[in-house]
Protein backbone atom coordinates (compact mmCIF):
# COMPACT_ATOMS: atom_id res chain seq x y z
CA UNK A 1 0.00 0.00 0.00
CA UNK A 2 2.83 2.29 0.92
CA UNK A 3 4.53 1.63 -2.38
CA UNK A 4 1.30 2.32 -4.25
CA UNK A 5 0.91 5.62 -2.42
CA UNK A 6 4.45 6.68 -3.14
CA UNK A 7 3.99 5.74 -6.79
CA UNK A 8 0.88 7.89 -6.95
CA UNK A 9 2.66 10.77 -5.20
CA UNK A 10 5.51 10.54 -7.65
CA UNK A 11 3.14 10.48 -10.60
CA UNK A 12 1.44 13.59 -9.38
CA UNK A 13 4.61 15.50 -8.70
CA UNK A 14 6.01 14.70 -12.10
CA UNK A 15 2.72 15.29 -13.88
CA UNK A 16 3.06 11.68 -14.87
CA UNK A 17 -0.62 11.17 -15.53
CA UNK A 18 -0.33 12.78 -18.95
CA UNK A 19 2.95 11.02 -19.79
CA UNK A 20 1.50 7.68 -18.81
CA UNK A 21 -1.85 8.29 -20.41
CA UNK A 22 -0.51 9.71 -23.67
CA UNK A 23 2.20 7.16 -24.30
CA UNK A 24 -0.17 4.31 -25.20
CA UNK A 25 -2.80 6.36 -27.06
CA UNK A 26 -1.25 5.96 -30.50
CA UNK A 27 0.39 2.60 -29.89
CA UNK A 28 -2.10 -0.26 -29.58
CA UNK A 29 0.69 -2.66 -28.60
CA UNK A 30 1.33 -0.82 -25.34
CA UNK A 31 -0.66 -1.69 -22.26
CA UNK A 32 -2.96 0.97 -20.78
CA UNK A 33 -1.36 2.98 -17.96
CA UNK A 34 -1.42 1.13 -14.64
CA UNK A 35 -3.10 4.00 -12.78
CA UNK A 36 -6.38 4.06 -14.75
CA UNK A 37 -9.21 1.92 -13.49
CA UNK A 38 -12.95 1.42 -13.49
CA UNK A 39 -15.12 1.93 -10.40
CA UNK A 40 -14.22 -0.21 -7.36
CA UNK A 41 -10.86 -0.98 -8.95
CA UNK A 42 -12.32 -2.71 -12.01
CA UNK A 43 -10.08 -3.34 -15.00
CA UNK A 44 -9.94 -0.54 -17.54
CA UNK A 45 -8.50 -1.96 -20.77
CA UNK A 46 -11.68 -1.50 -22.77
CA UNK A 47 -12.33 1.79 -21.04
CA UNK A 48 -8.90 3.11 -21.97
CA UNK A 49 -9.44 1.77 -25.49
CA UNK A 50 -12.31 4.24 -25.91
CA UNK A 51 -9.79 7.10 -25.74
CA UNK A 52 -7.39 5.28 -28.05
CA UNK A 53 -10.19 4.77 -30.54
CA UNK A 54 -11.44 8.37 -30.25
CA UNK A 55 -7.97 9.75 -30.93
CA UNK A 56 -7.17 7.53 -33.89
CA UNK A 57 -10.59 7.59 -35.55
CA UNK A 58 -11.06 11.34 -35.14
CA UNK A 59 -7.66 12.02 -36.71
CA UNK A 60 -8.37 9.63 -39.59
CA UNK A 61 -11.69 11.46 -40.03
CA UNK A 62 -9.79 14.76 -40.13
CA UNK A 63 -7.57 13.48 -42.94
CA UNK A 64 -10.60 12.07 -44.78
CA UNK A 65 -12.26 15.49 -44.58
CA UNK A 66 -9.16 17.26 -45.89
CA UNK A 67 -8.44 14.80 -48.71
CA UNK A 68 -11.82 13.73 -50.19
CA UNK A 69 -10.61 13.28 -53.78
CA UNK A 70 -7.70 11.15 -52.58
CA UNK A 71 -10.14 8.98 -50.65
CA UNK A 72 -12.49 8.68 -53.61
CA UNK A 73 -9.60 7.48 -55.77
CA UNK A 74 -8.29 4.90 -53.30
CA UNK A 75 -11.62 3.84 -51.83
CA UNK A 76 -12.51 4.40 -48.19
CA UNK A 77 -10.96 1.24 -46.70
CA UNK A 78 -7.63 1.79 -48.44
CA UNK A 79 -7.60 5.46 -47.45
CA UNK A 80 -8.42 4.83 -43.81
CA UNK A 81 -5.74 2.13 -43.48
CA UNK A 82 -3.19 4.48 -45.06
CA UNK A 83 -4.35 7.39 -42.88
CA UNK A 84 -4.16 5.21 -39.74
CA UNK A 85 -0.50 4.50 -40.43
CA UNK A 86 0.15 8.21 -40.89
CA UNK A 87 -1.79 9.22 -37.76
CA UNK A 88 0.23 6.79 -35.65
CA UNK A 89 3.61 7.90 -36.98
CA UNK A 90 2.86 11.61 -37.48
CA UNK A 91 0.08 12.84 -35.20
CA UNK A 92 -0.78 16.54 -35.36
CA UNK A 93 1.45 19.06 -33.63
CA UNK A 94 -1.14 21.85 -33.76
CA UNK A 95 -4.60 21.92 -32.15
CA UNK A 96 -5.86 23.42 -35.42
CA UNK A 97 -7.00 20.36 -37.34
CA UNK A 98 -7.10 22.26 -40.62
CA UNK A 99 -3.32 22.49 -40.33
CA UNK A 100 -3.00 18.70 -40.12
CA UNK A 101 -1.85 16.67 -43.11
CA UNK A 102 1.10 18.75 -44.28
CA UNK A 103 3.33 15.65 -44.19
CA UNK A 104 0.73 13.36 -45.69
CA UNK A 105 1.85 13.81 -49.32
CA UNK A 106 5.41 12.74 -48.53
CA UNK A 107 4.01 9.82 -46.57
CA UNK A 108 1.84 8.77 -49.53
CA UNK A 109 4.88 9.06 -51.83
CA UNK A 110 6.58 6.37 -49.75
CA UNK A 111 3.48 4.26 -48.95
CA UNK A 112 4.21 0.89 -50.51
CA UNK A 113 0.58 -0.01 -51.23
CA UNK A 114 0.18 3.19 -53.29
CA UNK A 115 3.12 2.54 -55.61
CA UNK A 116 0.80 1.77 -58.50
CA UNK A 117 -0.57 5.33 -58.19
CA UNK A 118 2.57 7.49 -58.47
CA UNK A 119 0.40 10.59 -59.01
CA UNK A 120 -1.56 10.10 -55.77
CA UNK A 121 0.77 12.18 -53.61
CA UNK A 122 0.36 15.14 -55.97
CA UNK A 123 -3.42 14.90 -55.58
CA UNK A 124 -2.78 15.04 -51.81
CA UNK A 125 -0.60 18.15 -52.34
CA UNK A 126 -3.32 19.80 -54.38
CA UNK A 127 -5.99 19.05 -51.77
CA UNK A 128 -3.71 20.38 -49.02
CA UNK A 129 -3.23 23.58 -51.07
CA UNK A 130 -7.02 23.80 -51.52
CA UNK A 131 -7.53 23.85 -47.73
CA UNK A 132 -4.77 26.43 -47.27
CA UNK A 133 -6.48 28.65 -49.84
CA UNK A 134 -9.84 28.10 -48.15
CA UNK A 135 -8.57 29.41 -44.80
CA UNK A 136 -6.14 32.05 -46.13
CA UNK A 137 -6.52 35.72 -45.23
CA UNK A 138 -9.00 37.75 -47.25
CA UNK A 139 -7.68 40.21 -49.84
CA UNK A 140 -9.18 42.07 -52.75
CA UNK A 141 -8.00 40.68 -56.06
CA UNK A 142 -6.38 43.05 -58.52
CA UNK A 143 -8.95 44.43 -60.93
CA UNK A 144 -8.09 43.86 -64.61
CA UNK A 145 -8.53 47.59 -65.22
CA UNK A 146 -5.65 48.29 -62.84
CA UNK A 147 -3.34 46.34 -65.13
CA UNK A 148 -4.66 48.23 -68.12
CA UNK A 149 -3.82 51.53 -66.43
CA UNK A 150 -0.09 50.76 -66.25
CA UNK A 151 1.81 52.38 -69.16
CA UNK A 152 3.14 49.63 -71.44
CA UNK A 153 6.74 50.73 -71.01
CA UNK A 154 6.49 50.30 -67.22
CA UNK A 155 4.82 46.90 -67.22
CA UNK A 156 8.14 45.08 -67.05
CA UNK A 157 9.03 46.83 -63.78
CA UNK A 158 5.71 46.31 -62.06
CA UNK A 159 5.70 44.12 -58.96
CA UNK A 160 2.69 41.90 -58.40
CA UNK A 161 1.69 41.08 -54.84
CA UNK A 162 0.41 37.53 -54.62
CA UNK A 163 -2.98 36.99 -53.03
CA UNK A 164 -2.59 35.30 -49.61
CA UNK A 165 -4.58 32.32 -50.90
CA UNK A 166 -2.42 31.69 -53.96
CA UNK A 167 -0.62 28.35 -54.15
CA UNK A 168 1.13 26.58 -57.00
CA UNK A 169 1.25 22.79 -57.26
CA UNK A 170 3.48 21.39 -60.01
CA UNK A 171 3.20 17.79 -61.09
CA UNK A 172 4.69 15.34 -63.56
CA UNK A 173 1.19 13.90 -63.80
CA UNK A 174 -2.27 15.14 -64.77
CA UNK A 175 -2.96 16.25 -61.24
CA UNK A 176 -5.54 18.94 -62.01
CA UNK A 177 -7.58 16.64 -64.24
CA UNK A 178 -7.46 13.83 -61.66
CA UNK A 179 -8.34 16.21 -58.81
CA UNK A 180 -11.22 17.84 -60.70
CA UNK A 181 -12.70 14.49 -61.72
CA UNK A 182 -12.63 13.10 -58.17
CA UNK A 183 -13.45 16.07 -55.97
CA UNK A 184 -17.20 15.68 -56.57
CA UNK A 185 -19.62 12.80 -57.07
CA UNK A 186 -19.82 12.73 -60.87
CA UNK A 187 -18.82 9.54 -62.65
CA UNK A 188 -15.14 9.46 -63.62
CA UNK A 189 -14.01 8.43 -67.09
CA UNK A 190 -10.64 6.99 -67.95
CA UNK A 191 -7.93 9.60 -67.36
CA UNK A 192 -4.51 9.66 -68.97
CA UNK A 193 -2.37 10.52 -65.96
CA UNK A 194 0.86 10.98 -67.87
CA UNK A 195 0.50 14.60 -69.06
CA UNK A 196 2.33 16.96 -66.66
CA UNK A 197 0.06 19.63 -65.20
CA UNK A 198 0.64 22.63 -62.95
CA UNK A 199 -2.16 23.95 -60.77
CA UNK A 200 -2.96 27.45 -59.63
CA UNK A 201 -4.97 27.36 -56.41
CA UNK A 202 -6.39 30.61 -55.13
CA UNK A 203 -9.49 32.26 -53.70
CA UNK A 204 -10.48 35.61 -55.16
CA UNK A 205 -13.50 35.78 -52.84
CA UNK A 206 -14.96 32.92 -50.78
CA UNK A 207 -14.76 30.06 -53.27
CA UNK A 208 -11.50 28.25 -53.82
CA UNK A 209 -10.50 28.09 -57.48
CA UNK A 210 -8.23 25.42 -58.96
CA UNK A 211 -6.99 26.03 -62.51
CA UNK A 212 -4.58 24.28 -64.80
CA UNK A 213 -1.81 26.70 -65.70
CA UNK A 214 -0.52 27.02 -69.27
CA UNK A 215 3.14 26.16 -69.88
CA UNK A 216 5.29 28.77 -68.16
CA UNK A 217 2.42 29.85 -65.92
CA UNK A 218 3.79 28.20 -62.78
CA UNK A 219 7.19 29.88 -63.25
CA UNK A 220 5.46 33.23 -63.77
CA UNK A 221 3.31 32.98 -60.66
CA UNK A 222 6.14 31.62 -58.55
CA UNK A 223 8.29 34.56 -59.60
CA UNK A 224 5.50 36.95 -58.64
CA UNK A 225 5.13 35.17 -55.28
CA UNK A 226 8.81 35.75 -54.62
CA UNK A 227 8.21 39.46 -55.22
CA UNK A 228 10.19 39.73 -58.45
CA UNK A 229 9.21 41.94 -61.33
CA UNK A 230 6.87 40.26 -63.71
CA UNK A 231 8.53 41.11 -66.95
CA UNK A 232 5.09 41.03 -68.52
CA UNK A 233 2.47 42.05 -65.96
CA UNK A 234 1.99 45.08 -63.78
CA UNK A 235 0.35 46.99 -60.99
CA UNK A 236 0.13 46.21 -57.32
CA UNK A 237 -2.65 44.03 -56.06
CA UNK A 238 -3.66 40.46 -55.52
CA UNK A 239 -2.95 37.95 -58.21
Amino acid at each position, binding site marked *: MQSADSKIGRLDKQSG*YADGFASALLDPKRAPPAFVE*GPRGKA*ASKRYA*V*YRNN*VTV*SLIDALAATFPATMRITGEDFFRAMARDHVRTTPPA*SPLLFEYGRDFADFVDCYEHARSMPWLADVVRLERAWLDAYHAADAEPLAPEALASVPPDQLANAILTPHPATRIVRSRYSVVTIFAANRGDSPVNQIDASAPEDALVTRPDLDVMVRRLPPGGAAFVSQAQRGGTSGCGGGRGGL
Partner: protein
Amino acid sequence: MGAGGAPHHALTRIRRDYPVSLHGVCMSIGGPQPLDKMHLDRFKALVDRYEPALVSEHLAWSTHETTYFNDLLPLPYTPATLARVADHIDEVQEAIGRPILLENPSTYVLFAQSSISETEFLDELVRRTGCGLLLDVNNVFVSATNHGFSALDYLADFPLEHVGEIHLAGHAEQTDDEGDLLLIDSHDGPVADAVWKLYDIVIGRAWRYPNPRRMG
Protein backbone atom coordinates in the same frame (compact mmCIF):
# COMPACT_ATOMS: atom_id res chain seq x y z
CA MET B 1 -9.39 30.03 -36.25
CA GLY B 2 -8.18 30.34 -39.82
CA ALA B 3 -7.06 33.69 -41.19
CA GLY B 4 -10.08 34.38 -43.40
CA GLY B 5 -12.45 32.93 -45.95
CA ALA B 6 -15.87 31.32 -45.72
CA PRO B 7 -15.84 30.33 -41.99
CA HIS B 8 -15.23 33.92 -40.82
CA HIS B 9 -17.67 35.23 -43.41
CA ALA B 10 -20.42 32.91 -42.14
CA LEU B 11 -19.69 33.61 -38.47
CA THR B 12 -19.72 37.37 -39.10
CA ARG B 13 -23.13 37.07 -40.73
CA ILE B 14 -24.46 34.96 -37.85
CA ARG B 15 -22.97 37.27 -35.23
CA ARG B 16 -24.68 40.25 -36.89
CA ASP B 17 -28.08 38.74 -36.11
CA TYR B 18 -27.51 36.56 -33.06
CA PRO B 19 -25.44 36.43 -29.89
CA VAL B 20 -22.92 33.57 -30.06
CA SER B 21 -21.37 31.29 -27.46
CA LEU B 22 -17.70 30.51 -28.10
CA HIS B 23 -16.97 26.94 -27.05
CA GLY B 24 -13.28 26.07 -27.02
CA VAL B 25 -12.28 22.44 -27.45
CA CYS B 26 -8.48 22.38 -27.42
CA MET B 27 -7.00 24.75 -24.81
CA SER B 28 -5.80 21.69 -22.85
CA ILE B 29 -6.59 23.41 -19.56
CA GLY B 30 -6.38 20.10 -17.69
CA GLY B 31 -2.88 19.24 -18.92
CA PRO B 32 0.28 19.45 -16.83
CA GLN B 33 2.21 21.59 -19.27
CA PRO B 34 1.91 25.36 -19.76
CA LEU B 35 -0.84 26.56 -22.07
CA ASP B 36 0.04 27.06 -25.73
CA LYS B 37 0.62 30.83 -25.91
CA MET B 38 0.02 30.97 -29.64
CA HIS B 39 -3.29 29.21 -29.22
CA LEU B 40 -4.25 31.51 -26.35
CA ASP B 41 -3.47 34.52 -28.57
CA ARG B 42 -5.67 33.10 -31.33
CA PHE B 43 -8.44 32.44 -28.83
CA LYS B 44 -8.22 36.00 -27.54
CA ALA B 45 -8.32 37.37 -31.10
CA LEU B 46 -11.50 35.39 -31.73
CA VAL B 47 -13.10 36.66 -28.52
CA ASP B 48 -12.12 40.25 -29.38
CA ARG B 49 -13.43 39.93 -32.92
CA TYR B 50 -16.79 38.30 -32.24
CA GLU B 51 -17.54 39.46 -28.70
CA PRO B 52 -19.38 36.27 -27.81
CA ALA B 53 -22.05 36.33 -25.11
CA LEU B 54 -20.42 33.34 -23.42
CA VAL B 55 -16.99 31.73 -23.59
CA SER B 56 -16.39 28.18 -22.44
CA GLU B 57 -13.78 25.42 -22.33
CA HIS B 58 -13.44 21.87 -20.99
CA LEU B 59 -12.04 20.30 -17.85
CA ALA B 60 -9.77 18.07 -19.92
CA TRP B 61 -6.48 18.01 -21.80
CA SER B 62 -5.75 17.30 -25.45
CA THR B 63 -2.13 18.28 -26.05
CA HIS B 64 0.86 16.63 -24.41
CA GLU B 65 4.42 17.62 -25.23
CA THR B 66 4.16 18.32 -28.95
CA THR B 67 1.25 16.06 -29.86
CA TYR B 68 -2.34 17.18 -30.25
CA PHE B 69 -4.63 14.19 -29.60
CA ASN B 70 -7.93 15.72 -30.70
CA ASP B 71 -9.85 14.23 -27.79
CA LEU B 72 -10.93 15.48 -24.38
CA LEU B 73 -8.68 13.41 -22.14
CA PRO B 74 -9.27 12.96 -18.40
CA LEU B 75 -7.15 14.03 -15.45
CA PRO B 76 -6.84 12.89 -11.86
CA TYR B 77 -8.40 15.17 -9.24
CA THR B 78 -5.73 16.02 -6.68
CA PRO B 79 -4.57 19.17 -4.86
CA ALA B 80 -1.73 19.46 -7.38
CA THR B 81 -3.94 19.20 -10.50
CA LEU B 82 -6.47 21.54 -8.88
CA ALA B 83 -3.80 24.22 -8.39
CA ARG B 84 -2.54 23.82 -11.96
CA VAL B 85 -5.98 23.89 -13.58
CA ALA B 86 -6.84 26.98 -11.52
CA ASP B 87 -3.64 28.65 -12.79
CA HIS B 88 -4.57 27.78 -16.36
CA ILE B 89 -8.08 29.17 -15.98
CA ASP B 90 -6.63 32.35 -14.43
CA GLU B 91 -4.30 32.66 -17.42
CA VAL B 92 -7.13 32.27 -19.96
CA GLN B 93 -9.39 34.69 -18.12
CA GLU B 94 -6.55 37.18 -17.78
CA ALA B 95 -5.82 36.94 -21.50
CA ILE B 96 -9.39 37.43 -22.69
CA GLY B 97 -10.38 39.83 -19.91
CA ARG B 98 -13.51 37.96 -18.88
CA PRO B 99 -14.55 34.79 -17.04
CA ILE B 100 -15.05 31.50 -18.83
CA LEU B 101 -17.47 28.67 -18.19
CA LEU B 102 -15.80 25.32 -17.55
CA GLU B 103 -17.56 22.16 -18.76
CA ASN B 104 -17.80 18.99 -16.69
CA PRO B 105 -16.34 16.05 -18.65
CA SER B 106 -17.70 12.65 -19.57
CA THR B 107 -15.11 10.04 -18.63
CA TYR B 108 -14.48 6.34 -19.16
CA VAL B 109 -11.74 5.75 -16.60
CA LEU B 110 -10.95 6.83 -13.06
CA PHE B 111 -7.48 7.55 -11.67
CA ALA B 112 -6.03 5.66 -8.75
CA GLN B 113 -4.40 8.87 -7.57
CA SER B 114 -7.60 10.98 -7.42
CA SER B 115 -8.39 12.26 -3.95
CA ILE B 116 -11.07 14.89 -4.69
CA SER B 117 -14.52 14.33 -6.15
CA GLU B 118 -15.30 15.92 -9.51
CA THR B 119 -17.98 18.21 -8.08
CA GLU B 120 -15.66 19.37 -5.27
CA PHE B 121 -12.94 19.94 -7.86
CA LEU B 122 -15.25 22.09 -10.01
CA ASP B 123 -16.63 23.93 -6.99
CA GLU B 124 -13.12 24.77 -5.82
CA LEU B 125 -12.14 26.00 -9.30
CA VAL B 126 -15.14 28.35 -9.28
CA ARG B 127 -14.11 29.62 -5.86
CA ARG B 128 -10.45 30.13 -6.77
CA THR B 129 -10.80 31.59 -10.26
CA GLY B 130 -14.24 33.18 -10.44
CA CYS B 131 -15.06 31.08 -13.50
CA GLY B 132 -18.57 29.81 -14.14
CA LEU B 133 -19.62 26.33 -15.18
CA LEU B 134 -21.08 24.76 -18.27
CA LEU B 135 -23.20 21.82 -17.19
CA ASP B 136 -23.34 19.05 -19.79
CA VAL B 137 -26.21 16.91 -18.53
CA ASN B 138 -25.38 14.08 -20.90
CA ASN B 139 -21.83 14.02 -19.55
CA VAL B 140 -23.23 13.65 -16.02
CA PHE B 141 -25.38 10.73 -17.15
CA VAL B 142 -22.52 9.08 -19.08
CA SER B 143 -20.03 9.38 -16.21
CA ALA B 144 -22.58 8.31 -13.62
CA THR B 145 -23.36 5.16 -15.61
CA ASN B 146 -19.71 4.43 -16.36
CA HIS B 147 -18.54 4.87 -12.78
CA GLY B 148 -21.57 3.58 -10.93
CA PHE B 149 -22.63 6.71 -9.07
CA SER B 150 -26.00 8.44 -8.90
CA ALA B 151 -26.48 11.27 -11.40
CA LEU B 152 -28.91 12.88 -8.95
CA ASP B 153 -26.32 12.81 -6.16
CA TYR B 154 -23.82 14.39 -8.53
CA LEU B 155 -26.28 17.14 -9.43
CA ALA B 156 -27.09 17.68 -5.75
CA ASP B 157 -23.37 18.38 -5.19
CA PHE B 158 -22.96 20.43 -8.36
CA PRO B 159 -22.80 24.22 -7.77
CA LEU B 160 -25.79 24.92 -10.00
CA GLU B 161 -25.83 28.60 -9.07
CA HIS B 162 -22.64 29.03 -11.13
CA VAL B 163 -23.95 27.33 -14.28
CA GLY B 164 -24.13 29.73 -17.23
CA GLU B 165 -24.85 27.26 -20.03
CA ILE B 166 -26.30 23.76 -20.34
CA HIS B 167 -25.46 21.16 -22.98
CA LEU B 168 -27.42 18.09 -24.02
CA ALA B 169 -26.21 15.45 -26.47
CA GLY B 170 -26.72 11.85 -27.52
CA HIS B 171 -24.54 8.96 -26.40
CA ALA B 172 -23.77 5.45 -27.64
CA GLU B 173 -23.65 2.19 -25.69
CA GLN B 174 -20.73 -0.23 -25.37
CA THR B 175 -19.52 -2.58 -22.67
CA ASP B 176 -16.47 -2.52 -20.42
CA ASP B 177 -13.98 -5.32 -19.64
CA GLU B 178 -16.52 -7.06 -17.45
CA GLY B 179 -19.42 -6.75 -19.84
CA ASP B 180 -21.07 -3.90 -17.94
CA LEU B 181 -22.66 -1.01 -19.77
CA LEU B 182 -20.18 1.67 -20.84
CA LEU B 183 -21.65 4.83 -22.33
CA ILE B 184 -19.74 6.81 -24.94
CA ASP B 185 -20.22 10.55 -25.37
CA SER B 186 -20.52 10.15 -29.13
CA HIS B 187 -22.73 13.12 -30.03
CA ASP B 188 -24.11 10.94 -32.81
CA GLY B 189 -27.74 10.42 -31.90
CA PRO B 190 -30.78 11.90 -30.23
CA VAL B 191 -30.69 12.91 -26.57
CA ALA B 192 -31.70 9.94 -24.41
CA ASP B 193 -34.99 10.15 -22.49
CA ALA B 194 -33.15 9.72 -19.19
CA VAL B 195 -30.94 12.72 -20.03
CA TRP B 196 -34.01 14.85 -20.83
CA LYS B 197 -35.40 13.79 -17.47
CA LEU B 198 -32.23 14.94 -15.71
CA TYR B 199 -32.39 18.19 -17.61
CA ASP B 200 -35.96 18.73 -16.39
CA ILE B 201 -34.77 18.19 -12.85
CA VAL B 202 -31.89 20.65 -13.28
CA ILE B 203 -33.98 23.46 -14.71
CA GLY B 204 -36.74 22.81 -12.18
CA ARG B 205 -34.28 23.35 -9.38
CA ALA B 206 -33.54 27.02 -8.65
CA TRP B 207 -31.31 27.25 -11.72
CA ARG B 208 -31.54 30.56 -13.46
CA TYR B 209 -29.46 32.26 -16.08
CA PRO B 210 -26.61 33.81 -14.13
CA ASN B 211 -24.71 36.93 -14.86
CA PRO B 212 -21.05 35.90 -14.74
CA ARG B 213 -19.13 38.51 -12.89
CA ARG B 214 -16.97 40.73 -15.09
CA MET B 215 -13.26 40.74 -14.59
CA GLY B 216 -11.47 44.05 -14.24
